[in-house]
């Protein structure tokens, strides 16, 4: 179980490997990608600001809560911060479990909680030259 903030591109291979376990029949994953629009407005790129100390603490709490709340074997999450281009992976969540019901439910729950609770903020740069800090 682990939650991390990174300044670099996310390489999911090692993160997924760490979840492999012969007791597990199911693995669910989510990736958040930087997309080229928001509410119909063309987006050129993003910058993520973060309160790293609080984010790692709060992210760790979310992962621990997920382990307690769902019948899963392991769960991990990594969130990228700094500048991101369209198509970049901004966040990854992976969950392994004996059965798929719990893997899906936990994966969904984790990303929802991360987006609600972890102190990371997105600044979108628009095609019209404007830029804006999103507040969910």
């Amino acid at each position, binding site marked *: 179980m682990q939650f991390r903030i990174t300044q670099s591109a996310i390489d999911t291979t090692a993160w997924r490997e760490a979840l492999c376990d012969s007791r597990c029949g199911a693995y669910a994953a989510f990736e958040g990608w930087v997309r080229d629009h928001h509410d119909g407005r063309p987006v050129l790129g993003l910058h993520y600001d*973060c309160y790293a100390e609080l984010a790692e603490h709060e992210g760790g709490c979310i992962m621990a809560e997920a382990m307690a709340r769902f019948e899963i074997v392991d769960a991990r999450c990594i969130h990228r911060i700094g500048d991101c281009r369209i198509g970049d992976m901004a*966040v990854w969540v992976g969950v392994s479990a004996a059965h798929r019901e719990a893997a899906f439910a936990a994966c969904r729950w984790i990303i929802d909680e991360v987006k609600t609770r972890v102190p990371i903020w997105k600044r979108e740069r628009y095609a019209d030259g404007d830029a804006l800090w999103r507040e969910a």
Partner: protein
Amino acid sequence: MSVTVLYFAGLREAAGLGEEQLDRPESLPALYATLRERHGFTHGQNQLRVACNGVFCDWQRVPADGDVIAFIPPVSGG
């Protein structure tokens, strides 16, 4: 006799700085009210959460010397 206040995202942009040292305030709401006026923050207190020393805390928490305080606008990660 002082606290450190950290700013992120829109609050950092509005304040024009990432952190500052201030005399220890009476309360967190009083601190935010002062800073809001000084920096022209548009957020009401009820739109923000507050963290102390790297952990979310209650607005009722009494600030202590050396506390690192951050006001947290609605997050938008993911």
